[in-house]
């Protein structure tokens, strides 16, 4: 299975991955130029945090081997695909209890800003062909995809 690997030393906090993720998950089609950067509907699934010392902590979903989010989800909205390894989220099954948010050890998951009824979850850009948009758009090559043992 594939995982996004991170070298935080290389990240310069440009948030291109953030904009790319927003672009990959927007509802209406369009180019990066007309992506509404102020619209919370276009929330990003990754977060770039400052480490407080001039560096950055890129936070990306690990699609964990033993995903705490999946294990804590009582309604079956989160599941790990045994073939691809991707941890995916089904909004229709979600009960909005946010146990997953509390249990993600990396703090990746969060309730959506607008309605607080669903979870904002990285889907490894499966709809975009499984090639993470964030990775493609990182100018520093701080993030990349690696095949890991499942």
């Amino acid at each position, binding site marked *: 299975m594939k995982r996004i690997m991170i070298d935080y030393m290389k990240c310069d906090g440009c*948030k*291109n991955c953030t*904009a*790319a993720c927003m672009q990959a998950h927007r509802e209406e089609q369009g180019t990066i*130029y007309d992506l509404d*950067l102020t619209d919370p*509907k276009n929330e990003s699934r990754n977060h770039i945090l400052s480490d407080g010392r001039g560096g950055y902590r890129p936070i990306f979903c690990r699609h964990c081997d033993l995903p705490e989010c999946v294990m804590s989800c009582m309604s079956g909205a989160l599941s790990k695909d045994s073939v691809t390894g991707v941890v995916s989220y089904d909004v229709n099954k979600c009960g909005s209890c946010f146990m997953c948010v509390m249990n993600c050890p990396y703090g990746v998951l969060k309730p959506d*800003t607008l309605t607080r009824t669903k979870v904002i979850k990285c889907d490894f850009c499966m709809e975009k062909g499984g090639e993470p948009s964030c990775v*493609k758009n990182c100018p520093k090559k701080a993030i990349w995809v690696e095949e890991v043992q499942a």
Partner: protein
Amino acid sequence: MNNCFGCNTCKSADKPLEEFIANLPMETSHHRVESQSTKCNFGLQGVCCRLCSNGPCRITPDAPRGICGANADTIVTRNFLRAVAAGSGCYIHVVENTALNLKNTALVKGKIKGERALERLCSIFGITSGDLYEKAEKVADAVLSDLYKPEYVKMELVEKLSYKPRFDKWKELGILPGGAKSEVFKGVVKCSTNLNSDPVDMLIDCLRLGISTGLYGLVLTNLLNDVLLGEPELRTAPVGLRVIDPDYINIMITGHQHSMFVDLQERLIQPDAVAKAKAAGAKGFKLVGCTCVGQDLQLRGSHYKEVFNGHAGNNYTSEAILATGAIDAVLSEFNCTLPGIEPICEELKIKQICLDSVAKKANAEIMEFDFAKREQQSNEIIDKIVGAYILRRGKINVDFSNADKEWKPLIDMLVGAYNSIHQDVNLNLMPEHGNDHTLTGVSEVSLKEFLGGKWKPLIDLIVAGDIKGIAGVVGCSNLTAGGHDVLSVELTKELIAKDILVLTAGCSSGGIENCGLMTPEAAKLAGPKLRAVCEKLGIPPVLNFGPCLAIGRLEIVATEIAEELGVDLPQLPLVLSAAQWLEEQALADGAYGLALGLPLHLGLPPFITGSKVAVKVLTEDMKQLTGGQVIINPDAKESADILEKIIMEKRSALNI
């Protein structure tokens, strides 16, 4: 040879050039497009603010305001106004130097090549008294005194230079510019941190800067150059890398300030200068046109056929031109002189001399143009260039036949030894590139003369629908928007196929001409009606007005046609496209187009899409304000359809 340096060169509309560049043993900008393909998406939308040390601030749903409180609209328009002000400043610098050169020429009673052009300016400015030189001085002074006015004093020539309905509109909108240099200053001040935060107010300022840029930086620079250098005359001339003649010492010029080359141009053909070239083993000197100053030389080339060999290409062709190995020196004086030429010049031992410190290149020798010392400077430049030639590809070619018998064998031996160890720079010429009969010398005057001294024949063709409308494809060349000149060339082809006559100016011209669209044979690419017109008149469907400065000429054509029809500019079936705009200067030009009320197509957005207000004002509200409108579309076919639709709407509004 195939020691490819990176093999990932970008596409070019000019396929032979694309191949040439892909096979070069050195890196060019075309090789770097790939490695710069990850763009900062916040930068692209214009919502990255670096105005203060709290920043850079970027806009996201979590952070819709910068630390200071500026929202996306404020950040975008501040950035945009900065860019327009800088672009305006560049053109105002050019017109200032041109006017100074005219004034100085008048004071020393130097050569005035365009007496008719001077009379034209005098009649526009209302100057009636004085001899040739006094008049030239008065014209230059009138321009300079306007440029130097404070921002709160309106420039005097604006009304004289502009079309009445436009002037009235500008007055009504309160966008008549004060002193052009001060307007740049005001623009820069306004968009500094924690000053203006009103997006509409800043966009209105862009229009004001557009007017001063257009009338002074564009229109007047051309007309002043006409006086100094002679008016454009229609003729055909060679274009492309073929214009480089390896038998000569070749000097490539880049920039925008043609008036700085007046003296040198004359000197290069004097017998003593030619003798120096001959002694070094060359036949003489040739100027090779590149970028806009090359287009300007091409335009007026009938006045100095001997020294000017033709226009080789635009800004992003300059590296290829140098890579031929046959260029011995680069004289640069303004923008579009890519920093990327420096390592190539170093590698190929090409001498770089810079004539204006605003465009000082890192490894160029600076020789700031000084009118009073121009003759001495020309001589120095010639000597340095001959020196470079000898180092690069010179042979000792002095006639020693009369030397003392005793010394002759020794001299022969030394000359022979030198010639045998001297290693020439490799030549990698492209003698087939381009074509040798591109129509050039088109100006508002020469075109009108061609039409029999009046615009009526052209208007009749438009009214009859043989020419559906006119599109100005202007501005720069860049390496994005499909690749080098790809969008400009494709769009031009689409437009002419729709029977729309295309007029060009700027580096876009350089690409379009190298692709052959300005030769009479290109008529066959036009729609049936335009093709018939072109074949009857023996002209191409794309008319080249030359440098980007000549956007000013194009707008004179538009104004004169509007005047003859008794309508305002926005009513004409006329559109503009700066499809591959590159620089801040292009944005200032664009602001002029909008002030004139013309639809302006851009292939790439000017870093404004992060602001809904900026997008709305520029693409929609502008129609009510000035009549103009920005259209953003990177697709040639779609863009041509949109522009055609606008032309058709304007035609039906005019009942034609």
